[in-house]
């Protein structure tokens, strides 16, 4: 099984949108799986408040672009070709995702997530959705044309995101990468209208059907 997963990733091109809390951890885990290409999008720079949870934020990287810092860190240990885009993903540059095998959602707002949903539909690319809030988070596989995000956020609004701790994005990122690996290996059991919810306060984990 491990060989199957490893082999299936080797020739894949993976895009990670966001290099912050979720993104930093996803980039690290994906880099160590050695896909063919890793594409990292993030237009933000690190600031002091990112030190508590964002993997590539250190005292030396504050003020530097997150995508570039992630690139510079992982090229030391991955076999993948790594391309960093030091700007936000917007509709006008979304064509750059054409040809990508899977998109990892590590964004931090609904507007970009809805853009990812439309990109997924347009270019027929699955998106591994992940989000965190306080001590809980969720993961889902958004298949093209599934409109999963619209079903999950029926009102297009969410309650304010609270502060989080270092281990919350690490766990959700880990589950996202696990779902990505299984999807690419053809062994995913998560259906396109299901999402995984994990509450670290009470260790309550469930799969909800939308």
């Amino acid at each position, binding site marked *: 099984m491990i060989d199957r997963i490893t082999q299936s990733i080797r020739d894949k091109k993976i895009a990670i949108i*966001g290099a*912050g*809390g*979720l*993104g930093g951890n996803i980039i690290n885990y994906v880099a160590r799986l050695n896909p063919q290409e890793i594409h990292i999008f993030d237009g933000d720079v690190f600031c002091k408040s990112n030190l508590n949870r964002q993997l590539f934020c250190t005292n030396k990287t504050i003020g530097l672009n997150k995508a570039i810092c992630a690139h510079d860190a992982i090229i030391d240990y991955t076999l993948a070709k790594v391309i960093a885009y030091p700007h936000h993903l917007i509709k006008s540059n979304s064509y750059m995702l054409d040809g990508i095998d899977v998109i990892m*959602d*590590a*964004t*931090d*707002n*609904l507007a970009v*997530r809805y853009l990812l949903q439309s990109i997924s539909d347009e270019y027929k690319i699955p998106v591994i959705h*992940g*989000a*965190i*809030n*306080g*001590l*809980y*988070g*969720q993961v889902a596989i958004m298949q093209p044309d599934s409109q999963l995000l619209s*079903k*999950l*956020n*029926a*009102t297009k*609004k*969410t*309650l304010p*995101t*609270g502060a*989080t701790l270092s281990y919350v*994005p690490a766990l959700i990122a880990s589950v996202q990468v696990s779902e990505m690996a299984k999807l690419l290996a053809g062994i995913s059991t998560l259906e396109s209208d299901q999402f995984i*919810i994990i*509450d670290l*306060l*009470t260790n*309550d984990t*469930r799969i*909800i*059907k*939308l």
Partner: protein
Amino acid sequence: MVKVEFFGIYRLSYKMSSWEVDAHSISDLLKKLSKKFPVFTYKELKNSVIMVNDVNFLHLKKYKTKLCDGDSVFIMSPASGG
């Protein structure tokens, strides 16, 4: 009574995992919930994923979904941070 199970931010904010209430519809339940625990308004509670007996209320009659004694309601607000 209807058993309401909270998840995520509701569990954190209400400091409880479940609650029992006498409610005849989802709308009635959310109104009673916002009155009992004003930390979230009725309008804010509408930004929730709501399951009634494990069925998404969007597949039922949404806020007009009838509730009966013994029904189980699950409520969570989807996370959006990264």
